[in-house]
Structure formats: C-alpha cells, structure tokens
C-alpha cells in the first residue's frame, strides 16, 4: 500500500490505526505470550507435553466467556473480564486441589488437579451450551471457543498489554535460571535456588499472561505446545537460548495465522483452526526431518 494513501485518506487511516494495528499487536502479544508460557511450563513441570492452559486456565476461560454471553451479554470487555476471572479461578482450584492430594510429587499432583478442574469446567461449558439460545448465543459461544482476533480494538489491547509486557520481561530476564528449575527440587536447591519462590513466580507469571491473552483471543490451541518445541529443535534445550527464539517465532506465527484467518476466505476463519492446522503440519515436518538444528 502506498504511504501517501495513508497520509491523505481518512478511511485508510481509520482502517489501519483503529482496526489493523491493534489487531496486529494483539496477535503479536498472543503468540509471544502463549509460546513463552508454554516454554516456561514445560521446563517447570519437566514435561515437554505440557501446554500453558492445562491447569484449568483454558477451560476456565471458556466457561467464563460462555457464562457471560448467556447471562450478561456479548460486550467484549465484559466477556474478557469474565473469562480472565474464571481462568484465574481454574488455576486456583487446581492449585488448592493439588495441595490436598496426599500422594505423588508436586508435578503429578498439579497435573492431576489440572485435568480434574479442566474436566469440571468443560462439563460446565457443555451445560451452558445446552442452555444457550441456539440462534444467537450458541454461535457466539462456539465462535469464541474457536478463537479469533476479529473484534479486537485498542481497549482490548490496553487490557492485556501491561500484564503481557511485565510477564514477558520477567520470563526473558530469568531465562537461564529456568534451566535450574527443570532439574528437580533436590538439585536446584543444592545449586542455591529458592525453588518454591522462583517456581511460584514463574508459574504465576506464565498463567497470568496466558489468562489475559486467552480472555481476548479465545481458545487458540497449539501455539503454546509446539512453538517451544520448534525453538528447541532450532537452538537446543538451554532455556537461555530457546526462550527468546520461542517468543519471537510465537509472535511471528500468530501474526501469520491471523492474517491467513482474515484473508483466506470472504468471511473470517476462526484463528484456532488455522493455528492448529499450520502448527501441526510444521511440527510434523520438523519432527521427521533429520538435522534440523542450527546449533551444535
């Protein structure tokens, strides 16, 4: 697009600055947050199959959004607030249930609790969908759940931006430290790490950025799971290297997917569908191709 159009045409200005720019920036926030949080959680839980929403966060957000759509209306900020609230609630439930479980290490307990809480919220979501008005509310819920950024404007971005920026900065600064937390409590403690404090900080930050971006974008799958894997394939397991790469690829990937979602057909395709489809394909290519590593 020639720049003089942008300078002279008021419609073009409005289009770019009120619609495209906030959307682009939220896609960036979304991708960066999910891939950072995914990378962090995989390290903290010492499990490469963990994704950022698994502690009841994603399902909680979905439930909160549906609840709001049915009982409070479809104002975006209202939905976001409700989704965030229930995302955090999901985490808190998982955490307190995990504390009550009397067996296993803390990883197993949190994972079990997360599974139970997610199932609980997804059952609740099922009930809400059943109750929803099939002509107006149900499509709204379904579309929200599939994820997308079509309705994003500046207020939405300002809502998520502070949390995302603070969270990403903390994760970036502690990226080498994260390696130590992946070693298990015994070793990490012997290396001078205050395990509980540092783990709680990083886990809290990851959940917070996940909760806010999910509350705006809906359930956008796969980014948090596969982008960290792709980053590790490229630069190795050292989190000092792969976390920044993961954040960068995540941001770029989300922007790419959102552009495809917006332009591929006349109507919007839900973002979650594109990220899953593209993500799975790229992931498979990376996994089966030998020697896809820049370092070493």
């Amino acid at each position, binding site marked *: 697009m020639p720049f003089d159009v942008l300078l002279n045409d008021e419609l073009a200005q409005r289009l770019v600055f009120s619609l495209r720019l906030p959307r682009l920036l939220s896609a960036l926030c979304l991708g960066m947050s999910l891939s950072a949080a995914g990378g962090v959680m995989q390290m903290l839980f*010492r499990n490469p199959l963990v994704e950022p929403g698994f502690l009841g966060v994603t399902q909680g957000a979905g439930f909160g959004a549906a609840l709001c759509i049915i009982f409070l209306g479809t104002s975006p900020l209202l939905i976001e607030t409700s989704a965030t609230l229930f995302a955090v609630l999901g985490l808190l439930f998982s955490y307190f249930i995990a504390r009550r479980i009397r067996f296993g290490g803390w990883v197993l307990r949190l994972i079990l609790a997360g599974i139970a809480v997610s199932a609980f919220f997804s059952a609740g979501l099922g009930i809400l969908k059943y109750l929803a008005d099939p002509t107006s509310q149900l499509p709204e819920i379904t579309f929200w759940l599939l994820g997308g950024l079509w309705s994003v404007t500046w207020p939405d971005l300002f809502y998520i931006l502070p949390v995302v920026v603070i969270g990403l900065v903390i994760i970036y600064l502690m990226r080498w*430290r994260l390696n130590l937390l992946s070693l298990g409590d015994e070793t990490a403690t012997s290396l*001078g*790490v205050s395990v509980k404090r540092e783990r709680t900080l990083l886990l809290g930050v990851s959940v917070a950025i996940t909760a806010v971006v999910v509350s705006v974008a809906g359930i956008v799958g796969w980014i948090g799971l596969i982008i960290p894997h792709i980053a*590790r394939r490229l630069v190795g*397991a050292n989190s000092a290297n792969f976390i920044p790469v993961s954040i960068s690829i995540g941001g770029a990937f989300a922007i790419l997917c959102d552009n495809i979602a917006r332009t591929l057909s006349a109507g919007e395709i839900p973002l979650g569908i594109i990220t899953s489809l593209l993500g799975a394909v790229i992931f498979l290519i990376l996994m089966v191709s030998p020697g896809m590593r820049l370092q*070493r």
Partner: protein
Amino acid sequence: MIQPILTITDLEFSYEANQKNVLNAVSFEIQPGTITAILGPNGAGKTTLIHLLLGLRKPLSGSILLKNKPIGQYSRKELSQWIGLVPQSEYVPFEYSVLEYVLLGRAPYLNPLDLPGPFDVQIAREALIQVGIEHLEKRPIPELSGGELQLVLIARALAQKPKVLLLDEPTSHLDLSNRNITLQILNQLRLNGVTVLFTTHDPEASSLVANNLVLMRQGKVMHTGSLETTFTSQKLSETYGTRIDVIQVDGLPVVRSLEKLQ
C-alpha cells in the same frame, strides 16, 4: 586439634508428624580434608541425612553446624557455595549438552538474572577435564551412558567449587571400572582439600577410599570412627544384620557375606 567442618548433634527427623523417626539421635563430626562414607543397608536413613545436610528438610530437633555456625543461618546461596551435591540419579527431560549442563553448577555465583560468562565456561571446562570427560562437551545428556552421566553430575558439582562435596550413592549403579574411576576422583578431590561425604550400601566402595566411616542402621548411628577401627566383621555384621566377614586381600580389607541362603 583441627576444628571439624561439620558437626552433627542429636539429629531427629520424621517425614510425617506422629510417625516413627527416620533419624534418631544422629551425631557425628566431619574433619576437613577427609573422605567419610556413610555406610548402611537400604532404608537406614542415609539419603534423608543428606537432605538435612543440604537444608532441603528441617530436622525435628538437633543441630547441624557448618564451621561452627548452624546451616540455617547461611543463605541458600552461601550454603550452595559451601556444599555441593551429586544426586543419586537425575532425570533430565531435555537435551542439554554436557557443557550447558555442567555450567548450571555456576548458579551459586550468579544472580537470578545473570547469564554465565566466559569465566564460568572456563571453570566448567576445567571441571570436565578434572573428571576426564572434556571430549564429551558437546554431547547431549540423554545419549550418555550411566557411567558418563555420573561423571557429568560430579563435574557439575565441581563447577560449584564446593568445600564440602556430598554424594548420594555415587557408585551404586556403576560397573566396577566406572566405580573405580569415581572413587579415584574422590581421592583426588580430597588431596585438593575438598571434604568428601558419600553414602553407600556397598562396604567395599567405602573401604577403598574412605578415611572415616559412619555406620547407620534404621535411622541410628551404630558406629563411627576411622576405617581401621570401624571396618570390622563385628561392626559390619551388626550394621547389616547379616553375617559379614572382613578379610585381607593384598593388604586391603575385603568383605564376604557368609550367610547361607535358605
């Protein structure tokens, strides 16, 4: 008389309240620059004792003094500059390279937001040379053999530059050749002034390198003392609850267990 580096007095510990104590009135002293083996059958409380020495768990009562100061008065970071740990085993879910892994041993000297620098890399490389695996530097951890992984774990603890090195069952899953390499390294460390403390259930591993023994059974210290006075048929048999004979082969004490199997 040299001041002991570690003084352990009347340590009591149990994992859950109202349960039988895992450690009972455990007391002993460690002199600097010695190798001490904590020897005893499985379930004697050896690993628990290591965890208490690291400050991972708090004792119900009793005290652990490091250089005459309770370990609780050291900060986590200070303590990790004093005491290094080689854990019994370590599950590594990600493909770190050996050098990256050993570099993690520099954490006690770095602030939470620091990255290791060239000086840390140099110390990590020296640690690899010290245990003789500098050629493995770039290898991913999951591709190592059990013996190699053990040496990597020791190198990481050495990069920590500890004055006291704790090793939890360092030889229990090694073949004889790797066991001897590990013990040789411990001996070398002692000559360099490091105080070494390791647990083992294998009397032979302790008789090869230890200066002093702490014999434990069911959470109690049965006997402590120098190798010569403690490594005897009577004391070992008492500790293991089975008949053990100590015989001399080429001037080295060797154990034989002569209990007939039913």
